[in-house]
């Protein structure tokens, strides 16, 4: 009886320990694989380009207008004294910018019609008039109102 009991205790202990460490080991393995998966997921998210909102272009507007401003948007609050105005117009067009304090700049759009220009802002309200002339001399203009303010709201 004593011999059999000792054998049973021994087998029971080995089995119990095996089960315990087996569960613990697999748990750790699962946790690690989850961490690895999350790490990969966050890395791949960083590498993916940020999805840009698709601009909604009114097809009827497109026929009559050849000047679309992509950024900034009208009535935006800018917290720096300079802003880059970006947009698209006819290829190789002349683009003029009239802004505060008698500021005026003339640039050309590239072969795809893209343009980009840095403009200085004054404190408070800023009205910027952008006019595009295509190679046939056709004129399109847009006015954008921006507010330069560093006040926290």
């Amino acid at each position, binding site marked *: 009886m004593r011999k059999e009991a000792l054998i049973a205790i021994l087998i029971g202990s080995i089995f119990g320990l095996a089960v315990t460490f087996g569960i613990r080991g697999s748990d750790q393995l699962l946790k690690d694989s989850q961490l690895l998966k999350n790490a990969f997921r966050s890395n791949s998210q960083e590498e993916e380009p940020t999805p840009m909102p698709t601009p909604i272009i009114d097809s009827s507007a497109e026929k009559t207008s050849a000047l679309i401003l992509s950024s900034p948007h009208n*009535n935006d609050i800018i917290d720096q004294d300079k802003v880059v105005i970006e947009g698209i117009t006819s290829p190789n067009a002349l683009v003029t910018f009239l802004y505060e304090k008698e500021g005026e700049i003339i640039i050309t759009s590239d072969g795809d019609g893209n343009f980009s220009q840095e403009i200085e802002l004054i404190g408070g309200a800023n*009205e910027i008039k952008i006019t595009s*002339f295509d190679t046939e001399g056709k004129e399109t203009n847009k006015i954008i109102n921006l507010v330069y*303010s560093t006040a926290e709201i």
Partner: protein
Amino acid sequence: MNKYKSVLLVLIFLALTILCLGPKVNFPLQAQDNPTPTETDEKIKGIRDTVKEKVKEQIDEIKKDTRKAFVGTVSKVADQSLSLDTQSGPQVIKTDDETEIVNEDRKEIGLEDIKLEDNVIALGYLDEDGLLEAKRVVLTPEPEEDKREIAAGIVTDISKESLLITLKNENKVKTYTILVNSKTDVKQKEDSQINESEFKEIAEGDFLIAVGTPEEDNGKIITATTLCFVSNEE
């Protein structure tokens, strides 16, 4: 007797198994009690912080899109709102007790101090109905009118002596007279680039843009501050 022995052995076996499994139940507690964080905990904390940061950035970005400012003249003052005539049309500005209203000297005033025809800038966030919930309203002086004009067309006549250029815009069926002076900045578009140029380089048939202010006594003459031309030969 053998039966008892077998039952006893099974009971001992089960008891030992349960005894060994017992600590497993307490593992999470042990991990919490452990004052020194493991490498895994550090990794989890790092990932959590990164996620928190990204979520905050996204929220700020979404909030930024609704951050707007309207500039206009006051057309109506109500208990908790202002109506503004802005360049893009009328706008209703919602205010509350937390809205900061300041005058031109940046001194705090009340909504009741705002009068019709006052010029204001209202800064805040757009609500789901597209109305601005103002966080700050600033009274501003009346903006100066920008009298500058842009005239564009084909050069039909040029006087090198009197520094006058006549432009004809066929799209607008309009003729402009441009006066050039020593301060006028002359540019030329060549090969998709804008380069500095001179008045003498401008010729009849060129396409020209003139930025300037119409003369007060004769609105038909524009004194140019900037000229940019494209040679007819290009």
